[in-house]
């Protein structure tokens, strides 16, 4: 399998704190990769560096053989990287379907003049976008909620809506920041199936997760961060028995 995304010596400092410290790893196309590590390890910061929300102090992000380190977020999205947020960031006062339509935006062309004159191309594009948005809603199982306001969805459904919005950008690569956060067991099981069908659609997945059972079930490859640095990488079974990882991350959990 070819490499889709490659992080090279990525470093990010906040004042004196090195949040991401010389991190390098590859994500193979078509895989589901987990990024794990204790709270404050720098996982979300890595995501923000990939999506251009933060600028790296050093290192590079290579996506499909080109550097995206200096690109603005919206361009990174159009290149095919979609994301969800750890702290859910929906357009709460807008309807569920409009939230998904936000994702369609970058695959549409028509501007303000086309809208005022309602050109045939503009109308066709609107129809197609709506079809795509509905299909993605259906994919995550939120069709019955299409016309509700996003703020009225349950926590778990809000997370799914973020996934649908990300998928509507037609990504090659999707990064999910704690997608199971706040979900119950049944919702988490459904989520795992959804993530697997995302991958089956040919979209590569990188996810951050605290829920170890999810990570073990869903991911083929894990990268472990601690204090901003990568301490281990490999298949889940191997990571599970890695002494460094147990000490840093799994250990305290098993004591509890």
């Amino acid at each position, binding site marked *: 399998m070819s490499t889709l995304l490659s992080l090279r010596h990525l470093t990010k400092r906040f004042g004196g704190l090195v949040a991401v410290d010389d991190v390098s790893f590859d994500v193979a196309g078509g895989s589901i990769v987990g990024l794990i590590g204790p709270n404050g390890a720098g996982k979300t910061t890595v995501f923000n560096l990939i999506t251009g929300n933060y600028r790296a102090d050093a290192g590079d992000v290579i996506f499909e053989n080109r550097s995206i380190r200096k690109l603005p977020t919206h361009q990174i999205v159009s290149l095919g990287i*979609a994301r969800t947020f750890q702290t859910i*960031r929906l*357009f709460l006062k*807008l309807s569920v379907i*409009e939230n998904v339509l936000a994702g369609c935006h*970058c695959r549409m062309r028509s501007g303000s003049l086309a*809208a005022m004159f309602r050109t045939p191309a503009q109308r066709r594009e609107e129809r197609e976008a709506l079809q795509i948005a509905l299909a993605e809603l259906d994919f995550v199982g939120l069709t019955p909620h299409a016309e509700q306001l996003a703020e009225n969805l349950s926590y778990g459904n809000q997370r799914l809506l973020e996934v649908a919005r990300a998928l509507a950008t037609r990504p090659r690569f999707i990064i999910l920041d704690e997608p199971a956060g706040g979900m119950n067991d049944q919702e988490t099981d459904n989520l795992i199936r959804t993530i697997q069908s995302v991958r089956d659609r040919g979209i590569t997945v990188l996810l951050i997760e605290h829920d170890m059972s999810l990570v073990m079930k869903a991911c083929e490859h894990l990268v472990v961060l601690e204090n901003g640095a990568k301490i281990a990488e490999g298949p889940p079974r191997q990571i599970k028995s890695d002494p460094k990882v147990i000490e840093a991350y799994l250990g305290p959990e098993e004591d509890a």
Partner: protein
Amino acid sequence: MKTQRQVTYAVCAAVLLIAPAFLNSYWVDVLNNVGIYAILSLSLNIILGHAGLFHMGHAAFYALGAYTTAILNTTSGLPVIWLLPLSGLVAGLAALVVARPIIHLRGDYLLIVTIGFVEIVRIALINNIFGITGGANGIFGIDRPEILGMKIRTPLGFFYFIWGFAALTIFLFDRLEKSRFGRALNYLREDEVAAQGSGIDTAHYKLVAFVIGAVWAGMVGNIFAAKMTIIAPESFNFWESVVLFMIVLLGGRGSIPGVILGAFLVLGLPELFRQFATARMLVFGAVMVAMMIFRTEGILPPPPRKYPLSRPTAPGDRA
């Protein structure tokens, strides 16, 4: 639902259309002013209501349009009606230049900078900048517009001109709202980081919102100049910007009917209660305060957009 709204629009339009038959020219002129403010507020609504940008300098674009018309008409005799699009263009270009460096400012910072902008424009006009603005006295002798060989002079003539332009504005802005463009403005208003993360170039859309709003304000400036035949800097002061801001907030941010209602209330009610000269401003202030506390969305907030939700196709179909 859709037809009910169309009926409401049609009834309001019909009432407005025949209203002049029952009103003297003073009240027709009041309606003309309401119309001018309604269009101005609709244009501000794109920036403030839809994109959520706290822009309190809209009178500056209005002034630029009015002065473009006044200067070019009085010096070169270009017909006023030709200057309508040109005035919009000049205001739009000004917006492009002014907005670009300030577009990234948030909330209250943007508010302060735009207040500064409208004051700079007003002071420049008073100081007779480039010797073409006529200083504090302004410019007089502006021609009346001529459409299809008919010169518009009377309040009634302007009534149909202004409200015709308002109807066109409503028609176009309604389409704009229900498009990719309109949605993009709402996304960036709701959550700019999420909008960018969904692939939206928020800086670009903020700029375009400013430009469209300014183009319209510039065109209204043209209509105003032609209606008054004389303009002076005091017509475009900071208070005008505040009134427009108030109309949008009071009527309902992002709501065309709300903004129009707001224009009627803010301009019409003080006229109705003229005999209570001093008390009316007090009542007005009290109403604004009550609104901000009890109905923060405005009187007529926009209803959720409706989409024709039919059967979905499988996601795999378009891979």
